[in-house]
């Protein structure tokens, strides 16, 4: 417990991370956002007669993401976790009449989300390698969606946040409507409806905050530090919860998740279930927990209740459904609910756990949804009663399925273990009923997973089922990267050692990196130390 608490605090000594000073750019975050946008526009107008350059288009998208990830890893390794302030900040007046600044920056939670976004970006391209139709448009939209998610993560101005938050809807809806499964149009409309509602709620919340703080600036540094009455904070907090609940999603605003994760192509599922939906919890962390402590304290039971309802609903729905992709979609609800439980704890340990679960959930949710999609694709049916005894015939997919299930449940050796332990240890102290309900929901989730694995993978083979093939190398690669990320953070948070040294490449590891800024954010919720002198 003492060790866990220590993890949630900033490093006491300012030891520079390895690699610091090798690469410095005042525009690092802008590069991460705008390079994919420029490439996307270029791809959209690139001549591609009869799909002659389809492979080139895919390669351009891949190397763009690889470059972004490379830059991101340099930025990550140079991130100084002993500093509680924002890093890689960019601040330029944009629309001074409205108080809008182009203000970007990252702290510990931000860098965790950025790493997730970079990872998700490259995985989504790999998952989309099988796209054959309108390749140019597909990858152009994919890059735009990725850029908007990255932009929302690094925004330090509420106007900029709204802009990027809303900008992801159009490309994602078009990707689903254009390249999804049979019910793709309904799925796209549901995404637009729910995410549109969430964006509207976010705009109302942001403008209310803007008006309450004097109407002079949208900068988070001003908005989230202004003294606002508890009543106004509560109202703003409530609409922010609505905005977050549509994204994450949380029960009862989860209506899009079954159709979208069940119908979208795998590359889009990766983005939606990965980084894009984590933005909901990230918003709560930034605005509610970080900016409105009074409202956060008052609304924390609501958050805990929503988390419990979401986990319970996801587990029961996964148990009842007969469609494997729908089961994957419902199970993908669980990590988001764990994150929200950590926020509901309003304690330093719970908040640290929820930040780590932003990353682990952003990897585990697309993993389970995409494994289910791959199994359905390779088994040529989505019907669970038809599937059976697949493990011997698709060993790669079976392994990945098991890892995805274990990641959802948070078993040791996987990154989600540390996240869930921190979350539950934090939450049981302040929200015992909610934490118990979520834990009970997780048990139900384990039952649903065991039932699903048993029926699909380890039961007797169905002789009447269509032919089955194992996951292709491409599918194994992208799913393997997601599974590997969970193992990496779970087993070797520092990453491999730099050759010839004893220094881990990503030292001091994701868990320590994310702690930068958390202690500052969590300070209003820290309990007084027993026996401390006044």
């Amino acid at each position, binding site marked *: 417990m003492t060790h866990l608490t220590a993890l949630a605090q900033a490093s006491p000594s300012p030891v520079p991370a390895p690699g610091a000073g090798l690469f410095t750019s005042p525009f690092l975050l802008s590069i991460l956002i705008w390079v994919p946008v420029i490439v996307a526009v270029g791809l959209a107008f690139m001549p591609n007669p009869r799909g002659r350059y389809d492979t080139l288009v895919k390669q351009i998208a891949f190397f763009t993401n690889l470059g972004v990830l490379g830059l991101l890893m340099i930025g990550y390794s140079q991130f100084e976790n002993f500093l509680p302030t924002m890093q890689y900040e960019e601040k330029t007046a944009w*629309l001074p009449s409205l108080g809008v600044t182009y203000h970007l920056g990252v702290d510990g939670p931000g860098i965790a989300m950025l790493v997730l976004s970079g990872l998700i970006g490259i995985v989504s391209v790999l998952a989309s390698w099988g796209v054959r139709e*309108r390749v140019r448009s597909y990858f152009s939209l994919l890059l735009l969606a990725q850029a908007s998610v990255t932009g929302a993560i690094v925004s330090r101005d509420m106007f900029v946040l709204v802009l*990027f938050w809303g900008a992801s809807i159009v490309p994602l809806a*078009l990707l689903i409507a254009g390249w999804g499964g049979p019910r793709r149009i309904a799925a796209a409309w549901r995404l*637009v409806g729910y995410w549109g509602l969430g*964006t509207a709620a976010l705009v109302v919340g942001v403008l209310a905050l803007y008006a309450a703080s004097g109407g002079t600036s949208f900068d988070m540094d001003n908005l989230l530090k202004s003294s606002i009455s508890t009543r106004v904070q509560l109202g703003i907090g409530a609409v922010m919860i609505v905005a977050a609940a549509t994204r994450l999603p949380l029960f009862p605003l989860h209506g899009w998740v079954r159709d979208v994760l069940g119908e979208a192509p795998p590359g889009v599922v990766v983005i939606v279930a990965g980084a894009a939906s984590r933005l909901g919890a990230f918003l709560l962390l930034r605005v509610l927990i970080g900016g409105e402590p009074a409202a956060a304290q008052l609304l924390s039971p609501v958050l805990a209740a929503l988390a419990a309802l979401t986990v319970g609903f996801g587990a029961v729905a996964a148990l009842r459904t007969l469609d494997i992709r729908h089961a994957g979609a419902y199970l993908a609800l669980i990590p988001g609910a764990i994150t929200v439980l950590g926020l509901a704890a309003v304690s330093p340990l719970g908040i640290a756990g929820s930040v780590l679960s932003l990353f682990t959930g952003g990897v585990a949710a697309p993993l389970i949804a995409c494994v289910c999609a791959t199994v359905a694709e390779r088994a040529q049916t989505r019907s669970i009663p038809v599937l059976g005894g697949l493990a011997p015939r698709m060993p790669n997919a079976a392994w990945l399925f098991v890892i995805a299930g274990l990641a959802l449940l948070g078993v040791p050796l996987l990154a989600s273990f540390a996240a869930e332990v921190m979350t539950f240890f934090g939450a049981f102290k302040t929200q015992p009923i909610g934490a118990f309900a979520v834990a009970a929901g997780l048990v139900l989730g384990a039952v649903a997973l065991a039932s699903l694995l048993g029926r699909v993978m380890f039961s007797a083979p169905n002789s009447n089922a269509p032919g089955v093939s194992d996951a292709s190398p491409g599918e194994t690669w992208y799913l393997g990267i997601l599974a590997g990320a969970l193992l990496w953070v779970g087993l070797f948070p520092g990453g491999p050692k730099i050759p010839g040294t004893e220094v881990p490449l990503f030292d001091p590891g994701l868990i320590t990196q994310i702690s930068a800024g958390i202690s500052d954010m969590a300070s209003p919720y820290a309990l007084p130390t027993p026996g401390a002198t006044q």
Partner: protein
Amino acid sequence: MSYLALLPEALVVATALGVVAIGRLAWLAGSSRRYLPPAVALVLLIAFGVELWAGATLSTYFGGTLVQDRFALFVKAAALLIAAVSVASADWAAEDSLHLGIAMPLVAAFGVMVAASAADMLGLWAGLELAAASAVVLVSLRRPDLGLRLLIVGAVASSLVLVGLAFIYASTGNADLGAIRDVVLSRAPTIALAIPTLLLLAGLALRAGLAPFHVGPLPVGLGASPLGAGLVIGLVTVAAAIVGIKLVAALTPIPGVFAPYAYVLSALAMVGGGAAALAVRSPRPRMAYLAVAQLGWVVAGLATHYRSGVAASLFLLAAFGVAATCGPALLGRAEAGEPAIAGLGAVRPVRAAGLALAILSLAGAPPLAGFFGELAVGAALAQSGNFILLGLGLLGTVLCVAAAIGTLRVLYIQGPIEEARRGAAAALPAVTALSTAGAVVFSLVIAGYGLFGQPILGLADQGAEALGLR
């Protein structure tokens, strides 16, 4: 006193007259087809440059009848840009007359410019009627019945405006806007001033096609030629909105009495426009309803009656004017509805990109011009504490974005119909160097409006300040 600031008006009028004259000369009309649109677009761009350069000097002309202030500068520059881009991006093969098709947008732009710099009620009315008359001419070329309908609707609107203006003149003893403002500010609001204000606002709402008054002019736009539709939905509406802004500022604090009614109108327009846009599938009606919804946002900003609200409305109005006027021009004939634009992204990529941006901007999708304008209005609404209207507006915007995505799906995801089945009603827009350049410029304006928006927003703010608002 320099008359250089009036050079843009002079250029516009001379060009319009010249183009009509060329059209009347049979020996010149045929040979002018190729060079006339680019030449006119160039003249308009020169006028735009002159306006930005010389228009910054504050002055009055013709004994105070016209005034050149920041408000006039902002609106005149916007009108010139709208006219230039619409002439450049139009599909002239889909228009009924090249010469009148070029001349009428110029006349409409001139009408907007006159209204923007008018210092008295006569100038306002004249500018509005000029803009409206040009739309009647262009609509009548293709559909005389719709032209007649627009004329009758316009006559009703005009009579309401005129009666209102006459009452105001009778009540205040002045036609000059500044003098009216002084008189009104010195008295408490009276019913004698409130009634004409209501008539005025009703007439302007009818002229602008603001819901529920859109039932008058909107069907006209659906049957007109592409540019005719652009004038009805775009420039004429802008002219009515400009007159409304100037009168609202001059009649302070009377319009404040009607703020609740304006809020109701704007809520109807924002939500109703969005719902109607979602309900229809054909691209031109969808664009028209998106325009109605965005106009609701403009009115919401005006109804706040603060400088920040009016500045935000002006900022949005310019974005609205560009998208609503040029959008139908980019759409082209498209009489066959959705099939006409199916797969346009593959066969006409630049034009399709322009069309997509026009629709998304009218819908208020980020990060385009309409989004920035609507968020600016939203900030003004939040500052005035009107969160119910803000919520309704956002609901309308969500509906609009959903509708826009529907059209984008047709543009980019559906395959184009077979050439043999296309026919005249679904004919592809002709590709010329000018129309491609026009579409590119349009796209840059819509995409860059907010990203580089501070000078525009700053000018809009100065414009609102010039009207005397605080």
